[in-house]
């Protein structure tokens, strides 16, 4: 085989998988956009009781914001502890490995845990709050790992300068490491939200119902969610494909916009922080 043929072979074997990925994406995008016909802006703000999507969209957003409000601070404090305070050793290694394992737990298993622990054991029932806590478990590894990475990227020289001026350790850490890493930490929370925005299995049993009258009035009430509605409509109700794709498209837009927002934010702040260049 000549050198030229070898090059061609490599080009083909690298190019074909790429083409397959692109084709699959195009097909998904194409299918989703068949649902665009069923959507109109008014439906987004119309109650489900009148055939709209308002409660499911808001339900998804409620779930996301609540989970972020819980996972954000916990993840931040955990990452500060791991980066700045934990001494290397067995316990730190175990915590570290547990975080990795948590990231690898299938969402249906997290959902099952949420159901037995938050819904039953803690008595939260099928509720927004139980959903927040369950989704928090899924977000945490992403928030912790992302925040850890940002904290480690802030040069130690800043912290050293603060300590040498007579700052306490916490003051040095909070005013240099954490403030320097803040944009990265916010980004990791947003990427964590993007990760769980489309989550279905984890919240099926803990917080979702097919239909509610209006939005939940307290965290202890159940909530509607785009992903759950999609799931039920496909499996149980056998709705016409187009309407299902309409919901899928809204969900896709929410997930993607979170991810894009997170990435844009990260890129923007990396430019502003000279030590990251």
């Amino acid at each position, binding site marked *: 085989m000549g050198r030229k043929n070898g090059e061609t072979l490599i080009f083909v074997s690298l190019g074909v998988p790429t083409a397959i990925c692109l084709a699959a994406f195009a097909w998904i995008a194409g299918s989703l956009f068949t649902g665009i016909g069923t959507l109109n802006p008014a439906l987004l703000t119309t109650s489900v009781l009148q055939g709209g999507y308002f409660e499911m969209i808001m339900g998804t957003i409620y779930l996301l914001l609540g989970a972020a409000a819980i996972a954000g601070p916990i993840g931040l404090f955990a990452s500060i502890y791991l980066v700045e305070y934990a*001494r290397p050793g067995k316990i730190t290694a175990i915590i570290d490995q547990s975080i990795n394992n948590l990231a690898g737990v299938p969402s249906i298993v997290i959902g099952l845990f949420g159901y037995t622990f938050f819904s039953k054991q803690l008595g939260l029932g099928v509720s927004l709050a139980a959903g927040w806590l369950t989704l928090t478990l899924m977000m945490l590894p992403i928030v912790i790992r992302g925040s850890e990475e940002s904290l480690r990227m802030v*040069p130690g*020289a*800043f912290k*050293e*300068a*603060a*300590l*040498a*001026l*007579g*700052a*306490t350790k916490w*003051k040095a850490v909070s*005013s*240099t490491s954490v403030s*320097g890493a803040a944009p990265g930490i916010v980004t990791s929370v947003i990427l964590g939200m993007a990760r769980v925005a489309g989550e279905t299995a984890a919240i099926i049993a803990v917080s979702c119902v097919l239909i509610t009258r209006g939005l939940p009035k307290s965290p202890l009430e159940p909530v509607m969610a785009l992903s759950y509605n999609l799931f039920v409509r496909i499996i149980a109700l056998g709705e016409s494909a187009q309407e299902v794709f309409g919901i899928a498209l809204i969900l896709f837009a929410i997930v993607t916009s979170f991810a894009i927002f997170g990435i844009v934010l990260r890129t923007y702040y990396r430019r502003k*922080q*000279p*030590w990251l260049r």
Partner: protein
Amino acid sequence: MAKVDIRNLNVWFKENHVLKDVSLTIRENAVTAVMGPSGCGKTTLIRAINRMNDVISGSRSSGELFIDGKNVYDSNTNVYELRRKVGMVFQKPNPFPKSIFENVAFGVKIHKMATDKKLSEIVQTSLTEAALWDEVRNRLNDSAFSLSGGQQQRLCIARALAVEPEVILMDEPCSALDPAATAKIEGLMRSLSERYTVIVVTHNLQQAARVSDFTAFMYVGQLIEYGDTNSVFENPKNETTEKYITGKFG
């Protein structure tokens, strides 16, 4: 008068004995240079004075180190107050990623040393003292990173001056700077020594000879020779010192 009095100081990093039985007395309102080849323990020596070795994991020490007659290694020493009193300037300029003003104000704020009104006064005085005021007076809110390397180092000096220290430690403050910026910092060391006790680590012999009143020469963790700069350079008593300053090694 003696400002810093070090007696039989030993420092270990894990199993590594980096400072061996060092004793020396550092004079007030003078520039004392600590010189020696890389790895001789000179940085460890000055970091022992403001207990910045404490933040390195695995470090421990023995011996005594008095500042104004008080042993800073006493268990009841307030380390934060010690580090306010003993300022430090690092090898590489390390301003905070904040504005010029906020950099100088940082220490004043954490020690709650001034009201907002007095704060800008302190910032101005400190920047003036560090010979930077005229260059930054119209851009105090700009990022510290917009300054040149030499200006950043002077900003770090101003930041240390703002908390009213008595001793200023400088760890090879010019090693990342060009000759012009180096000359400015050296001039500053001289003028600062009128009010402060300046201790500067350098591996640059000419610098030690130019700026210091007293010179300590260290080699593999030990203090080999210490005396006034003229006699150390012109008439070294120790053979190792002589070899070092005549460039036979180092």
